[in-house]
């Protein structure tokens, strides 16, 4: 009797133990069980960094694990993008992939393309603007294009490094207008802010960075934006017409940012991250932050993001070849 009771008790204990083990096992193995690293391929303080950090902070609440932001800068984005692509595809290292992923390989800097990543979602899109000094004689985008066509080589432009996204915005615009893409020589700068400083100082005449990047100087009354290179106007800048309205040129160019991981991530992790990111994107905190800073909002998850990257890559390649920036 006694023995049997002990035995049955032991059996029950064992059963209970087994049950808890079964119940606990998926819980323990469920993604994510440790902190996640989010690689930002651009420097702290920039737009990519700001949005990346915001997402990391909100993702932590959704996933219940810390999301650590790591800035891997340099090499025109090659260093950080390589770090994301070369990380172990376990879902614990993801990163912000930017428009440059479709440009670097055309410029011969790397072999990487958008196909080397597991796309999670596209979250931001900022169209290029056409900025000139506030006291400039140019009133519309058409004036600018006409002046460049009439005096090739006279007017200089800046806003980023040689062959950067804003350089392409200018070169593509001139190409569309039937002018030589190099008719307004590009003066390389270390980003939009030094380029705008050159504009204010009179060193260059045109800066084709995003309107958001110029907003501080626009409100300080030192710079004016004549057009945004997109199909629609910007909500935050209702006075700025689209390039098509302002000059008749059907040309658009934008920088974008999305979250992606290395190729071959487990489906479970991708699905979970995608769902969590969607909640983050829709949260009022994120929406307010993005609108407050003037960042454009767009949402394209998974396969849509992959298609987006492919299209972006192809169109950037076409422009880069047309303007002689591809190698």
């Amino acid at each position: 009797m006694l023995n049997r009771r002990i035995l049955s008790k032991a059996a029950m204990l064992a059963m209970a133990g087994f049950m808890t083990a079964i119940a606990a096992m998926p819980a323990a193995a469920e993604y994510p069980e440790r902190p996640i690293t989010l690689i930002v391929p651009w420097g702290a303080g920039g737009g990519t960094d700001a949005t990346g950090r915001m997402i990391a902070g909100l993702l932590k609440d959704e996933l219940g694990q810390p999301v650590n932001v790591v800035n891997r800068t340099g090499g025109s984005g090659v260093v950080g993008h390589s770090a994301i692509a070369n990380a172990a595809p376990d879902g614990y290292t993801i990163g912000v992939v930017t428009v440059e992923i479709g440009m670097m390989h055309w410029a011969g800097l790397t072999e990487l393309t958008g196909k080397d990543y597991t796309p999670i979602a596209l979250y931001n899109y900022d169209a290029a603007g056409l900025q000139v000094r506030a006291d400039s004689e140019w009133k519309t985008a058409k004036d600018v294009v006409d002046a460049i066509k009439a005096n090739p080589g006279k007017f200089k432009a800046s806003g980023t490094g040689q062959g950067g996204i804003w350089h392409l915005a200018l070169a593509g615009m001139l190409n569309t207008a039937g002018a030589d893409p190099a008719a307004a020589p590009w003066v390389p700068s270390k980003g939009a802010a030094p380029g705008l400083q050159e504009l204010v100082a009179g060193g260059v005449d045109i800066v084709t960075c995003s309107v958001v990047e110029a907003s501080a100087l626009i409100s300080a009354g030192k710079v004016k934006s004549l057009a945004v290179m997109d199909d629609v106007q910007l909500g935050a800048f209702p006075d700025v017409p689209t390039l098509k309205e302002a000059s008749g040129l059907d040309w658009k160019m934008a920088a974008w940012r999305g979250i992606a991981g290395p190729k071959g991530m487990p489906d479970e992790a991708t699905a979970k991250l995608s769902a969590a990111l969607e909640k983050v994107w829709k949260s009022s905190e994120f929406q307010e932050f993005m609108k407050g800073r003037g960042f454009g909002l767009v949402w394209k998850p998974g396969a849509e993001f992959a298609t987006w990257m492919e299209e972006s890559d192809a169109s950037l390649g076409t422009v880069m070849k047309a303007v002689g920036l591809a190698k």
Partner: protein
Amino acid sequence: METVLKALTLVADPYTLGVMLLAAMFGLFVGAIPGLTATMATALLIPFTFFMDPVPAIAAIVATVATAIFAGDIPGALLRIPGTPASAAYCDEAYAMTKKGLAERALGIALVTSVIGGLTGSIVLSLSAPALAEFAIQFSSFEYFWLACLGLSCAVIISTGSTIKGFVSLLIGLFIATIGIDGTAGHPRFTFGNIELMGGVSFIPAMIGMFAISEVLRYVASNRTVIEVPQQAVGSVFSGLGAILSRYKFNIVRGSSIGAVVGILPGAGADIAAWICYAISKKRSKEPEKFGTGHPEGLVDAGSANNASLAGAWVPAIVFGIPGDSITAIVIGVLYMKGMNPGPMVFIQSPELIYAVFIAFFLANLALLPLGFAAIRLSRQILRMPRRILMPLILMFCMVGAFAINNTVFGITVMLVLGVIAYLMEENGFPVAPAILGIVLGGMVEDNFMASMIKADGSMLGFFSRPIAATLGVITIMLWLTPILVAAWKQYRRMRRPTAET
């Protein structure tokens, strides 16, 4: 006004104040230990600033440096070993006072003049930087090119030791700056296919290596002598101080203002400010024969000068991104990290952050008075800290700092390699400061040169086409030609003399 209030709330935050207090104590400790410099203290702070907002991060550096430069006077006066190079100029003088039994007076003078010098420097910084920024917004790549050239030239001319060795050191720095993708053509240079090198040599790990690792190496290679601390009682610090200060009030003003101006010059920091002001003090003194015998006059001049130069060095650092001394060379890296990219734009985009830095300077220098007093009292305990415990700790912090800047082990590699290079350079009499300036300014010189050439359609005359650029250009070229002309003149004289004798 609204900006100043916003800045005040940023600094008055209890967290920021707490960070500043801890940083000030850290600065006193590091400064008081011979061989550990204020620059090294800044380098060691970097891993901690990662976790802070911009204002506490910058305030921490400000507080550390202000106290470290004063603390360097303590071992200088008690042991005749300057705690930081900034105290070297008047170390003998202060020690002579100690031998006369006036240790507390020497330290009292050092403390009060440091505070006054620091406050003067802060005033110079907060008045001149915004005014200069307003002016600097008109600067284009032509002006920046000349400014960077001027900075590099000053580094060579002012650097201690031979000009040739300073020039070689500068070239080493410029070479390091060329590694990575070049800004104009977007082409990788000296990367050997290494992706990490495409990003260039990140200058915070480089500087941690050059300042801290080289010091650790020097310790390992040295004879490890134990420092004997004199068992002399330190009496009342402030007694009889008023009379001395009122007697030499003109010296305080002179030392502080010259110090601040020397600080603004790129490449010249607290140590050079102290040397120059000590020399001026002796030359202009009514009783120069007393110098070196424990006379307070030179102490007053140089003691205020080195602290004044600290704030002065921030002027070109914030306005142009050109470091005024080796400390601000590191600060520029931290500013970039915190999104406060130096340049006139930051005065437009986030003026409250800049004003918060100014307020931090005033606060740190005011806090120096009580904290410095405590440090004088505790000096003997601080000086007894054994090196064999200290050096491994420093090595650890260096590793953490170099890793954390980019979260890559590559940073540690950069730090170690440059640490060995800096050690070898210093052992052979090559100053490290020009190399640092080369690393920081190399990209600036090149990018602005290329941008200017594109703008001017390849015409060299473009560099003289704008009035400010032309002025800066003429000054720079004169600076280059002066040593050559002087050498030629001497050669000419030497050639003439033998002929005259025959």
